[in-house]
């Protein structure tokens, strides 16, 4: 059945002019196509931001290097951070949500297909606007180019006085626009999950991915809005002479910090919770057991969502808050480690007693588990305020959050790619290339980010375009840079695999992994309408019930 659907689509596609296909894609409101558009968009910017990271690392390879000027370097780290967060990780996660959520809950599309398309194009436009700054950011005074204030855009560095020209405005408006896109998609995700589940799919029978994306979307709505508000205030400061962050008029630089981090901390949970979703779907299938402790996983996720709104000032331990404020945020930061740790234990419990298969998706999940554990532990170290007074603003922090984002989230994303690529394209990704990708990336990742903790401990601050020789940082930085290149090669192997397998990969069939959720009950790729008839479910693993009528989950639900 799947090969027929593919054959029909290919035959149709072959006969049509390419402009028609392009037009179809540009005007699509189908959640699957929008999902693919998000992911392709994110992959493009992954390469761009990766190049920016490579420029940074080449400049820092040795002390007093002059590969780029300080002005260019400062733009590189600002754009690298901004791009990776807003135009790589968030879009790719929204892309997966778009593709998977309706299929996994037995719906035909998202709740608001046109809002879906609108949100995607808002985000896409935001990214293009941000990068247009390289070309068009000159402004009246010839000052300005791409934004160079760091991705947090701290006041008053972003005021007109210290950032003349328009580079800051490109940052502000690009993120404002894509922020609206993110809010739109999140509204869509929540409405879809709450209102469009197929019959029988009570909330307690939803795949964990749906719960996790529900939480993530809720966090987006609550956290992107403060950033939007702060950006409006910054724009009003810069253009209408307002004084929100104008310290000369009695304004407060710390107020920007509070507003930014009230967004910034939940944002990192926005980024990591879908990673949790992917491994929560993949580990059970490759361990051949259901997820251990489903209700606890749901509870822990909701707990993380709530507590994450209360920890933000652990990014601000050094700004001179009182000892009581600092202690409060130490407390909430430590507390959030508990539900997070519980999740790791539950994944461990899922694998325990299973029959683990080590195809590429599972390799990346195992990498995720070890690396996210380490990242969480360095997070606990950073949560202890006095330790933070030494380590914040240093390369230790950069190592920590890259450990989470690359070692955790990106590994989970790679797992998700290898797992769901067959469903989206109807073809399997090449497993040998997949393993090569995994090993190369693993080596490069550890070479870079394990070592990166050390310069921080030895006093190397972040966001510096060069450093003094003889501080013990020289060789370490060289090793870090070499690891970057290895990771780059691994990503190229991955991209090559994507392209090669799309055309030549073996046909996947409906259910290549012997999995249990609804998306595996339809063809690969699914038909436009998803399900011939909307299914009714009686348990969390409808396909397990079908494959094991002698021992269905519905007996225990």
């Amino acid at each position, binding site marked *: 059945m799947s090969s027929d659907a593919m054959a029909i689509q290919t035959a149709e596609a072959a006969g049509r002019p390419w402009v028609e296909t392009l037009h179809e894609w540009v005007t699509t409101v189908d959640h699957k196509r929008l999902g693919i558009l998000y992911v392709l968009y994110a992959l493009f910017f992954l390469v761009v931001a990766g190049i920016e990271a490579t420029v940074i690392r080449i400049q820092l390879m040795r002390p007093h290097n002059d590969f780029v000027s300080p002005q260019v370097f400062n733009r590189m780290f600002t754009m690298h951070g901004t791009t990776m967060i807003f135009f790589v990780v968030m879009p790719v996660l929204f892309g997966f949500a778009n593709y998977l959520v309706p299929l996994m809950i037995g719906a035909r599309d998202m709740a608001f297909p046109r809002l879906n398309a609108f949100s995607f194009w808002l985000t896409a436009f935001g990214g293009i606007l941000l990068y247009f700054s390289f070309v068009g950011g000159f402004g009246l005074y010839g000052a300005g180019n791409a934004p160079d204030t760091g991705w947090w855009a701290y006041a008053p560095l972003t005021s007109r006085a210290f950032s003349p020209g328009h580079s800051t405005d490109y940052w502000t408006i690009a993120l404002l626009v894509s922020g609206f896109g993110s809010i739109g998609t999140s509204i869509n995700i929540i409405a879809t999950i709450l209102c469009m589940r197929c019959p029988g799919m009570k909330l307690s029978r939803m795949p964990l991915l749906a719960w996790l994306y529900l939480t993530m979307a809720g966090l987006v709505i609550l956290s992107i809005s403060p950033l939007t508000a702060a950006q409006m205030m910054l724009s009003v400061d810069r253009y209408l002479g307002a004084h929100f962050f104008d310290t000369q008029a009695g304004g407060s630089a710390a107020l920007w910090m509070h507003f930014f981090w009230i967004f910034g901390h939940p944002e990192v949970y926005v980024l990591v919770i879908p990673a949790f979703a992917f491994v929560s779907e993949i580990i059970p299938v490759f361990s051949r057991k259901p997820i251990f402790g489903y209700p606890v996983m749901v509870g822990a996720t909701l707990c993380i969502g709530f507590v994450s709104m209360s920890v933000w000032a652990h990014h601000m331990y050094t700004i001179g808050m009182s000892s009581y404020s600092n202690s409060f945020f130490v407390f909430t930061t430590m507390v959030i480690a508990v539900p997070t740790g519980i999740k790791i234990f539950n994944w461990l419990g899922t694998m325990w007693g299973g029959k683990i298969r080590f195809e590429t998706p599972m390799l990346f999940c195992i990498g995720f588990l070890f690396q996210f*554990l380490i990242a969480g532990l360095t997070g606990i170290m950073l949560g202890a305020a*006095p330790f933070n007074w030494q380590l914040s603003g240093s390369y230790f922090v950069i190592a920590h959050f890259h450990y989470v984002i690359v070692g955790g989230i990106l590994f989970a994303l790679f797992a998700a790619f290898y797992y769901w690529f067959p469903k989206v394209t109807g073809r399997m990704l090449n497993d040998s290339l997949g393993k090569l990708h995994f090993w190369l990336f693993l080596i490069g990742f550890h*070479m870079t980010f394990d070592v990166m903790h050390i310069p921080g401990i030895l006093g190397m601050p972040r966001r510096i375009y060069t450093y003094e020789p003889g501080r013990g940082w020289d060789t370490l930085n060289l090793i870090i840079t070499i690891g970057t290149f290895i990771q780059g090669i691994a990503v190229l192997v991955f991209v090559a695999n994507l392209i090669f397998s799309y055309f030549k990969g073996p046909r996947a069939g409906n259910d290549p992994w012997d999995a249990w959720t609804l998306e595996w009950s339809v063809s690969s790729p699914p038909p436009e309408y998803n399900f011939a008839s909307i299914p009714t479910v009686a348990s969390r693993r409808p396909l397990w019930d079908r494959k094991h009528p002698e021992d269905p989950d519905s007996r225990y639900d």
Partner: protein
Amino acid sequence: MAKNYAGKWGAVIGRVIGVLVIVAGILLAAGLCTAAPRVDNPVPSIFEPRSTPADSIVHLSHFVLAITALIFLVVATLLTYAVVKFRNKAGDPQREPAQVYGSTQIELAWTVIPILIVFVLFLATARVIHAIQDAPKPVAALEVTAIGHQFWWEFRYPALGVITANELHIPVSDPDHPTPTFLKLLSADTDHSFWVPQLAGKTDLIPNRVNEMWMDPHQTGIFLGQCAQYCGTQHAKMLLRVTVESPEAFQVWVNSQKQPAIQDEKETAGKRVFETTACVNCHEVGGTNATGRFGPDLTHLMSRHTIAAGAAENTKENLRLWIQTPDAIKPGSLMPAMQLTDADLDALVRYLETLQ
């Protein structure tokens, strides 16, 4: 099937490599801890504390590291064990394993234990926070006001009548009769952060806000640090140099810094260049009519080892280069290229060299 084996062992080996790299890193850092104390400390490691706040932080960090290391060992061992023990063996009958949904007791156990750990960590941390932040200021404390600028440090000793820049001199503190230095932190423009790892954790300098920090170095020597909050183009070269001296040597330094500028009759030409060009708009030289506040005080310029906040050594050549082409040393700094003739420039540098 063979592929599965390779995958499984490979995953384990990969984990082990990762752990080894981290352990190596920790050992390297620890090696630095146990090295003999040096007077000159080119490596500003947080694990080489020389002052009470830095010491307290190291002690807390040992505690935190011990707990996190223990957690890592336990969980990583369990993960490794699971990955090895429960792998799908070749030739296994195609039966699915027992489909276990969960276990309330286990969930309770691994909820309660982390909560207890969190509690202990929090209490230990809160104690150190209060010890450092709420430490009372003894009467004998030295008060210094640090003002952050783009991209240099202004230091004022209000009780002693001293104004200097970039290189901080403070007395060593005897634990029996403590003479700590209490810094009041202000900013003239954007956010900065004062970080000398061996003396204390960092505290930010934020405009329109007064922050405080203290340090009581137990050992004389020169301690290095730099600005740790991105403040603009030349954030990277806003370096710090703290000279901790014996009380006698510190008094000698203070006495010389309090004096107005030395009036050297030989270099009147250079002095005239200084006073008739834009130099006086930004720089102060005590006892002359140069009273600019935008740039560093130059009254005792030659008492410093470096110029441009540590960006270059304080030599005749560098001084000359700095005045003529600041971008060659610190591109993007706010020092303008003075566009002087060679003769004027030479005279000016000779004049500056008299500012001992």
